[in-house]
């Protein structure tokens, strides 16, 4: 079956420092990878999704690159902002699963002044 692993449950860092949240996956199919972000008391929202043509998706300063050789889709940002504090989920689907997402365990990012 499909699985997604996020190794860090909690990440705390200081404003202005770079962010990297890890995501690795396993799937027997060619996957689509996503990052969802959930701010406190809000709905999870799509942050980024992988492209099929190796473009690097970017949004709100975040970017991620799908590396099929290492089965990874790490989320990065060059400079963290206080407003980035949130819960981040990496998720996977494929054409055989329709829109059904398999989620990682989530990483809570806290950015301090």
């Amino acid at each position: 079956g499909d699985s997604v692993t996020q190794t860090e449950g909690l990440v705390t860092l200081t404003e202005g420092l770079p962010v990297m949240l890890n995501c690795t996956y396993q799937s027997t199919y060619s996957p689509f990878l996503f990052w969802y972000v959930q701010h406190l008391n809000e709905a999870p929202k799509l942050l980024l999704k992988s492209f099929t043509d190796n473009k690097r998706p970017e949004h709100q300063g975040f970017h991620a690159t799908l590396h099929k050789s290492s089965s990874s889709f790490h989320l990065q940002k060059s400079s963290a902002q206080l407003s980035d504090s949130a819960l981040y989920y990496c998720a996977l689907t494929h054409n055989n699963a329709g829109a059904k997402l398999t989620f990682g365990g989530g990483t809570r990012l806290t950015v301090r002044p």
Partner: protein
Amino acid sequence: DAGVTQTPRHEVAEKGQTIILKCEPVSGHNDLFWYRQTKIQGLELLSYFRSKSLMEDGGAFKDRFKAEMLNSSFSTLKIQPTEPKDSAVYLCASSLAPGGNTEVFFGKGTRLTVV
């Protein structure tokens, strides 16, 4: 456009009660999902509907959890009987099409506390 609407936002139930959570997906969306969110387990799939047909219902949740789609614009999740371990946030989500590269939209969730 309205997003995914879930009601109530908060629910407190006594152990053994029956509760019903409600969800209205984004208008025109064909796929609907129910997820349970906890700090320990993260997001767990409870049910998946495509065009009102049940495609999957999470094996571990079958005995006391029942999701239904009465029409294309309304779904319910019934928990019967509730247990304290059911305390969690229940998220409803919808998607326009079953393609793997389709965005899924989530509601804000219902926070259930079972005492």
